C-alpha cells in the first residue's frame, strides 16, 4: 500500500521556512549517535491508523535509515500529567529529541520545555493557541527549543469536498472520528468545498454530518453508515483513524464510495472492499514534516525551526509535490467533470488566495449556504 503519499515529496521537501537551506544531512557536524529520538503518543496507541501511527512509522523509518536511537513512550492514561511523566522518562533515558503528535501535548510542552532547554521538542498539531490561550503573543523566544507543525486540514478537506461535488456526487457524508481539532478542520473544509462546488454547478447537494466518537469502526457505526448509503448517500468522507472500516463495509453493500484521510488510503480501502471505492483522499504530510525536522536536526539545522510554529499547508500553486496537503494525483478517480487539471487549478487558486478557506475549529457543527447539512452529532 502507498502509505506514504508524498514520499516523493518527503525526502527532498523543505518547508516554507527551510526553503533557503537545502543542505544535505550528511555533512552534519555532530556525530549521529548523539541524537536519540523518542516519540510519545497521545491518548491513542501507535496503532491508531492515524496520527500516532503515521508519526511512528515516519520516525522509525528515518531513525533506522540514519541509525539513530529511537523508541516510543505511551502514557498511562489520557492526561497532561501522564504525558509529562513520559517526557520526563524519555529525557531521563537520554533521549534528546521528543516527537509529540497531537494538540493534546500543549500543556505538557508548557510544563517541560523550559525544564529541558537542551532537548528538542517536535510537536505536531499543537497551535500557538493551544500553548498560550486565546490571547497568545507567541514568539520565537517563548519556547526556543520547541517546533510545532500545524496542518491546515481544512485545505485538503475543502479539496475533497469540492472534488466530490464536481465529480457529480450530490449526496455526501462526513463521518468524523472524534471531534478533535484536526478532524473538525477537515470536516469544515469539506463542507466549504462542497458548498463552493454546489454554488458553481448549481446542483442541490445534501450532506450527512456525524462523528463516530471513536477512531475505529464497529457494528453501530456500520449500521449508521448503512443507513446513509441505503438512504442515498453516494460518498462518505471517512475522517479518522480506522473508522473507514465501517464506511467501507457499508459502501461495499450499496456500491457507495469513500474518501480517505491523512494519507492516500486508496490501496488500503480498495484492497479491503473492492476496486474503485476510494474516490480520493484528503492528505496531509505528516511524514514529510517528521522527515524534514529530523533531517534538519541531524544536519545541524535545528535552529531554523526552533521556537517556531509552522502552519503547514500549501507551499506552491504550481508544484503540488512541495505542498503539505492535497489530494493524491495518482489514485484519485478523476472524471470528465473533475479532471486532474481542474484539481491543479483549484490548488493554484487556493495557493494564490483566490479561494479562502476558514479554519474555524469552533465549527464542530458546520453550516453552509448552498448545501443542506443534516447534522447528526455523535453516533455513539
Amino acid at each position: 500500500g502507498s502509505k506514504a503519499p508524498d514520499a516523493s515529496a518527503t525526502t527532498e521537501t523543505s518547508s516554507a521556512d527551510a526553503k533557503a537551506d537545502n543542505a544535505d544531512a550528511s555533512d552534519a557536524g555532530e556525530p549521529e549517535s548523539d541524537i536519540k529520538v523518542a516519540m510519545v503518543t497521545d491518548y491513542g496507541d501507535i496503532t491508531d491508523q492515524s496520527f500516532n501511527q503515521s508519526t511512528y512509522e515516519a520516525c522509525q523509518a528515518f531513525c533506522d535509515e540514519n541509525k539513530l536511537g529511537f523508541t516510543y513512550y505511551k502514557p498511562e492514561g489520557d492526561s497532561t500529567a501522564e504525558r509529562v511523566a513520559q517526557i520526563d522518562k524519555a529525557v531521563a533515558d537520554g533521549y534528546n529529541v521528543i516527537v509529540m503528535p497531537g494538540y493534546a501535548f500543549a500543556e505538557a510542552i508548557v510544563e517541560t520545555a523550559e525544564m529541558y532547554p537542551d532537548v528538542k521538542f517536535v510537536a505536531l498539531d499543537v497551535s500557538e493557541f493551544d500553548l498560550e490561550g486565546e490571547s497568545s503573543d507567541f514568539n520565537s523566544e517563548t519556547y526556543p527549543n520547541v517546533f510545532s507543525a500545524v496542518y491546515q486540514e481544512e485545505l485538503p478537506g475543502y479539496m475533497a469536498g469540492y472534488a466530490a461535488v464536481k465529480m457529480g456526487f450530490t449526496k455526501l457524508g462526513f463521518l468524523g472520528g472524534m471531534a478533535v481539532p484536526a478532524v473538525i478542520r477537515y470536516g469544515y473544509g469539506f463542507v466549504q468545498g462542497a458548498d463552493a462546488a454546489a454554488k458553481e454547478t448549481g446542483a442541490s447537494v445534501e450532506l450527512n454530518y456525524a462523528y463516530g466518537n471513536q477512531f475505529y469502526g464497529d457494528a453501530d457505526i456500520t449500521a449508521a453508515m448503512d443507513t446513509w448509503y441505503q438512504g442515498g448517500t453516494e460518498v462518505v468522507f471517512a475522517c479518522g483513524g480506522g473508522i473507514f472500516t465501517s464506511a467501507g463495509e457499508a459502501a461495499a453493500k450499496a456500491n457507495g464510495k469513500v474518501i480517505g484521510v491523512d494519507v492516500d488510503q486508496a490501496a488500503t480501502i480498495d484492497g479491503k472492499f473492492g476496486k474503485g471505492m476510494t474516490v480520493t483522499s484528503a492528505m496531509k504530510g505528516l511524514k514529510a514534516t517528521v522527515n524534514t525536522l529530523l533531517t534538519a536536526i541531524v544536519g545541524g539545522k535545528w535552529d531554523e525551526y526552533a521556537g517556531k510554529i509552522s502552519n503547514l499547508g500549501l507551499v506552491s500553486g504550481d508544484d503540488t509535490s512541495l505542498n503539505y496537503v492535497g489530494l493524491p494525483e495518482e489514485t484519485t478517480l478523476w472524471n470528465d467533470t473533475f479532471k486532474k487539471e481542474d484539481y491543479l487549478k483549484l490548488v493554484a487558486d487556493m495557493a494564490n488566495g483566490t479561494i479562502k478557506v476558514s479554519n474555524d475549529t469552533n465549527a464542530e457543527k458546520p453550516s453552509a449556504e448552498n448545501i443542506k447539512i443534516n447534522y447528526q452529532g455523535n453516533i455513539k
Partner: protein
Amino acid sequence: MVLLLQYTLLFASVLILVALGGCFSEHSGVINLGLEGIMVMGALGGALTLKYIDPSLPKIIIVLAVLLISVLCGAVYSMLLAFACINFKADQTLVGTALNLLAAAAATVIAKSINIIEDPNNVSSTVQYVEAKKALVVSIGKFQFNWFMLIAFLALVCAYMVLYKTRFGLRLMACGEHPQAADSVGINVYTMRWAGVLISGMLAGVGGIVYITAGVSEWKFENGVAGFGFLALAVMIFGQWKPVNIGLAALLFGFFRALSNVYSGFDFLAALNIPGSVYNMMPYIISLIVLAFTSANSRAPKAEGIPYDKGSR
C-alpha cells in the same frame, strides 16, 4: 426499515447467545460476570480463524470452523472461572471481574504478539479478516442475513429444550436452586456446575465473534467488546433466566440499540432533532424502566453465587 430489522436481529443475536450463556451458568449456580471477557476470547479465536482460513473454502466450512474455534476458546477460557469458583470456592464476582480485565489484556497482548511476529513493524492489535468474513453473510434482497442469526435462534430453541425437557437441564437447574438436594440424590454438583460454566463459555465465545464481525471486517482487540457482555447480563436478568424471555428481552434491547444507529433513516425521527446522545441512552433508560416495573417478582436461581460446599447444609 430493513436495516432496522437487520441490526435489531444482529444485536439481538449477540445478546441472545451471551445471555443464554449467562443463563446456563447461573442455572447451575455460578454467576458469570466474566461474560465480557469470555466474549473477547471467543472473538479472538474466531477472528484468528477467519484471518488464517482459506477464504476460498466452501462457506459452510468457514462458518463452522469459526463457530467451532470460538466455542472452543470461550469454553477453555471459562474454565478459569469454573476452576476457581467451583473447585476452589472463589468469590464469583471477583473472578468474573478478573476474567474481564484479563481477557482485555491477554487478547491485546496475543494479537500484538502475533502481528509482531508476522511483521515487526506492525505493532497493532488489529486482526483483519475481510475476505473470509464474507462467508458469514448472505444477501437476501436488501437484507443481509448473517448465519449467526440462525445459530442464535437455534441456540435459543436448544436452550429451551435442554433446560426444560432433558435430564441434563433438570439436574442443572437443581444445582442452581438447591445443590444440597441435588447432591443428596446423587447428582455431582461440581460436574454440573462445570458443565453450566463451560456451556456459558461456549455461547459467550460465539457471541464474541458475532459481535466483532457484526459490522466490520477487522477488529482491534484493545477495544474489547465495549460492554456487550454486561448488556447481555442485563438481558438475562431482564429475561428472568428463562430462554424465551431472554429472546424477547434481547430483541427489545437490540431494537433500541439498532434504532439509535439508524434513526436518521426515518424522516419523522430525524425531524424530531433529538440529540444523538439521547438515542444512545435510550436502550439503557428503557430497560431500566421496564425492569422497574417487572422486577417485583424476579427470582434468580436461589443458590447462585454461593460456592457449593459438600460439608455445609
